[in-house]
């Protein structure tokens, strides 16, 4: 990592400038993370008086606990559904706006604001829309013979949080896809048009392959978002239920640790989650280096 060719030669000053950032990072990020790793190998007695080293016990228990494995696969379903739904819609909107020269800006304004809605508010809005007594959606769904009650039906509860989480993320994907599409060289499009390919064919054979780096980047970002930033949606609406049907990995860490006070297991879960974020971040940054050359 480079600096400027000419630099200032103060000895103490750079440390002072870095001190606040490093202090907060060490105290509130790295130290707690280290504590989580440490207590994931320990067991505390019920009174909190002594701790004993138990090795990989918590991990072994977790990985053989059907509930944890169910939460793992549930999180996978949740993350992939939200990612695919919000990316497909974001891309469709971006492709449409990209076609319009003058009115595109207006539509952009009409589509970007959901990003600013807080996850907890987004959850509450959709929860109300699907509310079984007064909501609009159950009323509509009834016409199709669907009996909606996300308080009892786990699949429906999952659909509810998928819709709410994807809704919030559409504008983000839309903006990145739009930027990607607008950077596709116009000359390529014109050449293809002269060769007789229509807009749909051009989209699938030219635009889509050329924006594949953006697509990959967004995939990682969206999986990350769904795993970690959707906590408020779940907490304000389904609270992980019914019967754990919407308990994701992050929600389980919260329930077992903060509510259930099971420190060892919660720490082991934290450590496993950290590993997932590390992999995602690594992939994301490896890819950014490639994108610069692209």
């Amino acid at each position: 990592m480079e600096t400027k060719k000419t630099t200032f030669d103060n000895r103490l000053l750079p440390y002072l400038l870095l001190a606040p950032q490093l202090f907060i990072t060490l105290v509130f990020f790295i130290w707690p993370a280290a504590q989580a790793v440490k207590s994931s190998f320990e067991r505390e007695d019920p009174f909190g008086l002594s701790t004993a080293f138990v090795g990989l016990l918590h991990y072994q228990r977790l990985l053989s606990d059907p509930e944890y494995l169910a939460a793992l696969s549930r999180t996978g379903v949740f993350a992939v559904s939200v990612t695919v739904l919000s990316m497909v819609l974001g891309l469709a909107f971006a492709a449409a706006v990209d076609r319009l020269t003058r009115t595109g800006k207006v539509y952009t304004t009409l589509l970007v604001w959901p990003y600013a809605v807080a996850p907890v508010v987004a959850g509450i809005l959709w929860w109300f829309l699907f509310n079984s007594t007064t909501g609009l959606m159950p009323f509509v769904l009834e016409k199709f013979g669907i009996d909606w009650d996300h308080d009892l039906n786990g699949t429906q509860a999952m659909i509810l949080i998928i819709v709410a989480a994807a809704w919030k993320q559409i504008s983000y994907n839309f903006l990145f896809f739009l930027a990607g599409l607008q950077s596709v060289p116009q000359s390529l499009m014109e050449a293809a048009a002269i060769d007789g390919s229509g807009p749909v064919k051009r989209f699938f054979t030219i635009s889509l392959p050329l924006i594949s780096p953006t697509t990959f980047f967004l995939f990682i970002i969206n999986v990350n978002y769904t795993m970690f930033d959707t906590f408020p949606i779940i907490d304000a609406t389904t609270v992980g239920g019914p019967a754990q049907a919407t308990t994701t990995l992050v929600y389980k860490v919260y329930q077992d640790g903060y509510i259930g006070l099971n420190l060892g297991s919660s720490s082991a879960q934290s450590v496993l989650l950290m590993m997932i974020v590390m992999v995602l971040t690594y992939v994301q940054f490896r890819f950014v280096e490639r994108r610069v050359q692209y």
Partner: protein
Amino acid sequence: MVENRPFLTFLTHAFLIVGFLIVALPVYVAVIASTHDVSTLMSQTVPLWPGSHFIENYSRILTDASAANGLPNYSHMALNSLIMAVVITVGKIAISILSAFAIVYFRFPFRQLAFWIIFVTLMLPVEVRIMPTYKIVADLGMLNSWAGLTIPLIASATATFLFRQFFMTVPDEMLEAARVDGAGPMKFFRDILLPLSRTNIGALSVILFIYGWVQYLWPMLVTTDPGYYTLMMGMKRMVTVQDGVIEWQLVMAGSVLAMLPPILIVIFMQRLFIRGLTETEK
């Protein structure tokens, strides 16, 4: 546009308009619901046209503390959200621009290490270290305080990276000229770098303000004193009614007010917002 296809253009408009209507549906329903009274919302499917209780509902939520069952006054929570968002925005920008300055304009031992320590924050979101972070904040006596609410959220790798990238594009001649004129590092920072960074600071502020405004898990962990409740926690409390009915018209009025400030910022500062979003996330 490469060629003129009126029918396809028509379809494009139709698709975008329908898309917008679907995306806006939950917000539309929320606004409508906030103008009805409780009996309408309890007994039937939500009406699609506004009712006559707009003023009553909004003035109740803004002035009547009991409207939010035992929570502090709504405007008090809104003020808390505002303070939290502003402190986080200013704090993140201040410490990040200083660290980026140190990393780019100085050569010193452990520079690389410092960079990696900052980088690590990306991999440790609050959600994965709930318990130990809570414990540290408790041990430091920072529960139920502004310091506890804001300081642990202030570290920012993305903001540091953004400023670092920007500083790398500032021509070296600037620094040489400043040194020839006898300017020290802090004078160079204040008189040259800071004014040059104005647009970046603006773009970042929009993103960070929204980030601070929508915080949920962290304030919930570190505050139990209702005096520190933010709007987002208030919203959750309003919908967790133990017995009795949820007053949907008030919940929806509350939701509308809670999403209004960030939405207005995004719409009216759209250029800065888009710039901030696309620059910070890479």
